């Protein structure tokens, strides 16, 4: 599925008028790994994500396996999952149609139907429910459909932008478990954006800390959290509720890459 698919940001700048929302950012998402991107509101992390999928114009280079990420045409190897489960699915389309729309063209109707069923199963939803409307689903279920839609594009990399922050605590866990499972079983690479350090710690092998449009620190998650080099990272860690007691992960084993 992913051959030579390292997502690389090289000196990326995104400007909104005079403001550089993303300011000379370089970042690598290695093949088969989940890279966490943390930062507070306004740090530019979502803008960076939108640049990766071509939703905002940027300067610099964003490459996938050495080639620029295509932002025109039907083949889109970088896919994105958005924050708000209320608005992430078209209320007028069945969830099956939403997923099918993202399948690259060229397959027959039956193939598409089978693919939709396979994807629904992959995110632990009953394939028989493909005719359901988004309004019939809970927030967590919608977010899983959104993941399935992203996977339908046969992506090499998925960008997940705050996908759990709008969910009730009792269903956040299910989505996080699914993210880890997909990464392990499919070897999916991911740029996982969150303001929540504990969540990033749980899913990401590497982490980058962003502030005022710049990346102030990046490295192995275990290392960055245990031994932060930048003051801002330390500040973030100290601010995690209950965080000052134990900022060190219990498992420092970084062997959670492709099985």
């Amino acid at each position: 599925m992913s051959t030579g698919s390292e997502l690389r940001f090289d000196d990326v700048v995104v400007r909104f008028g005079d403001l550089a929302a993303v300011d000379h950012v370089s970042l690598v998402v290695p093949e088969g790994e989940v890279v966490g991107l943390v930062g507070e509101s306004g740090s530019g992390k979502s803008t960076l994500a939108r640049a990766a999928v071509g939703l905002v114009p940027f300067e610099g280079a964003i490459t996938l396996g050495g080639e620029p990420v295509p932002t025109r045409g039907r083949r889109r190897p970088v896919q994105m999952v958005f924050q708000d489960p209320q608005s992430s699915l078209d209320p007028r389309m069945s969830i099956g149609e939403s997923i099918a729309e993202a399948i690259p063209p060229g397959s027959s109707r039956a193939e598409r139907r089978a693919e939709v069923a396979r994807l629904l199963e992959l995110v632990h939803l009953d394939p028989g429910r493909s005719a359901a409307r988004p309004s019939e689903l809970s927030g967590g279920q919608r977010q899983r459909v959104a993941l399935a839609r992203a996977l339908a594009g046969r992506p090499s990399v998925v960008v997940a932008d705050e996908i759990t922050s709008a969910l009730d605590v009792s269903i956040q866990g299910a989505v996080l478990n699914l993210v880890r499972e997909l990464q392990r079983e499919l070897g999916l690479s991911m740029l996982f954006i969150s303001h929540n350090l504990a969540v990033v710690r749980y899913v990401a092998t590497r982490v980058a800390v962003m502030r005022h449009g710049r990346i102030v620190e990046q490295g192995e998650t275990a290392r960055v959290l245990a031994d932060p080099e930048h003051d801002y990272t330390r500040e973030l860690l100290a601010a995690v509720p209950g965080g000052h007691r134990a900022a060190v992960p219990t498992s420092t084993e970084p062997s959670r890459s492709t099985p």
Partner: protein
Amino acid sequence: MRRWTAVLRTPLGLAATVLTVVVLLLALLGPLLFGDAASADDTDNLLAGPSGDHWAGTDNLGRDIFLRTLVAARLSIGLALAATAIAVVAGLVLGTASFLLGRRAGRVVVAAVNIAVAFPGLLLALFFAVIFGVGALGAVLAIGAAGAPAFARLVQTLVAGVAGREYVDAARVSGVGRLRILVRHVLPNIAEPLVVNATIGAGGALLSFAGLSFLGLGVQQPAYDWGRLLFDGVSLLYVNPAAALAPGAAVLLAGLAFNLFGECVAKGLGVTTPASVLAPRPRGLSATAGTAGPSVPEAPTDDEHVGDDVVLDVRDLEVSFPGPRGVVRPVRGVSFSVRRGEAVGVVGESGSGKSLTALAVARLVGEPGRVDAERLELLGTDLQGADTRAQRRLLGTGLSLVFQDPATSFNPTQRMGPQLAEVSRHHHDLDRRAALARAVDRLRSVRITDPERRARQYPHEFSGGMRQRAMIGMGLMGSPSLIVADEPTTALDVTVQQQVLDLLAAIREADDVALVLISHDVAVVREVCDRVLVMYAGRVVEDLPAADLASAARHPYTRALVAAVPDMTTDLEQPLATIPGRPVDPADVPAGCAYADRCPLASARCRTEDPPLETDAAGRRVACWHAGEPIELSTGLEDAEDAGDDVHERETVEAL
């Protein structure tokens, strides 16, 4: 479709619909039925007044004005619809252009529409009437062109609303073309408001057309529409008023019909419920019969020691709202007390009733909500009494409130200083100068730098964290014994969250102020509070020391809640716990324990009998028949799925 038929059930909606149908039928059939009679000259009755033969009299050729009014329906309505069609098509082209053309070219179209829309339709219609010429065709083009900018603006707004939604971004990321996105995602989602507004627009066009014809700029003799009849009739006003009143009434009725029909449909399609402000989750009101679950009185707690140092004492608090299918009780028999200097956390998911509990304590549940309690005392004063000045002063100065969203909690049109100062102006009778000085002092006390300058600024000039600190400062204008903070840090960044929590802690320490901290974030509550109340479906299900949350919680919901959220010590090798199903809808609380459907320990007894909140020797309370029994915490997605689907399917089936 149900929403459309709902329009027919209101008297106004029914009247408007019937009127619209009648008008449309008249337009279709009028000329066929009365065409000949309306053009027959009755030379014996020139310019006659109303009579049995001619209900509205006759014109200068002896033609029956009433019949001519009926026949004119077709031309009047046909022209109005044609003009509306022009306006809608032109508006759609202009309105979607900015979406299709992309940023730069789109901006030009938007600017052009913005300028055009500032000019009133009548002025534009006159302008175009000059260009297109006097007459029916010219008037149709003029009114159509004049209506286009307003419609374009509407389409732009609607398109922008949908285009900003994430499913449109998702489609773009999938490589779907702009035109296809417009057709598949955008247009279907704006179709309803478009149709409604086109209907209202048709009513407007009808009236505008009558206006142009009335000025002599529209339909010309020998053709006639209502406006033309009115134009002719007004000159006869002193001879035969009915000649003007008949077409005038026709214009008015037809215009009203279209407009009211559109308005009623618009109202029917928009979802507005009067109780939607404080009643959580109005969407849930579609569930089963509105019998809220039986309110089980809590176990007698009178034996619990209530000392002199109790700041807040709440017994059997209930909040209810009238719902479409009976009374909804989002808070059902909550009892707790808070001692001087104590920090009590209240955790629960959305809809658990935690925020309403806070509002009820502060006596801020607005109508139509109802608050009942066996006891509701602040500093020994009963808050359920009359709304006296003494009570207002007690609540205004002894109780301090901090709300979730500091961005919307200040009056945007007033400077910060006076907003704080008015507390002292009113409750301490300070003059403006002294009150403002105190406000500046309080701002300084909540660590706002340069408070003199800040006091002269507007709320939007403050950052989010600063606003929340100012909100706390406002609570300190009095000398509060209790601070109730409802999700005070949810809208803030983590580093700012820490500052606000530290500030609250410092205030508690300095003045022995008690704190009730409401939060969905178990970690925050665990860090800040001494004691935690866990709420589920409007009840307190567990009351325990914060230190026991992680290790010694006994209620299965509390334990799942703690395990479902990763913190900085979560074992990376284990999947997170999940809670199957979804939170209980306050309008549909099941019999028995509300948590039973999601609980791995649930037995038959749990589904029939709601467990009382029992107090143990150490003063901890829990409401569970299986408190403390060992659990295999659910981590599987399938479990969550099945339960969720069950709940869901039931809801949808009943909604049909």
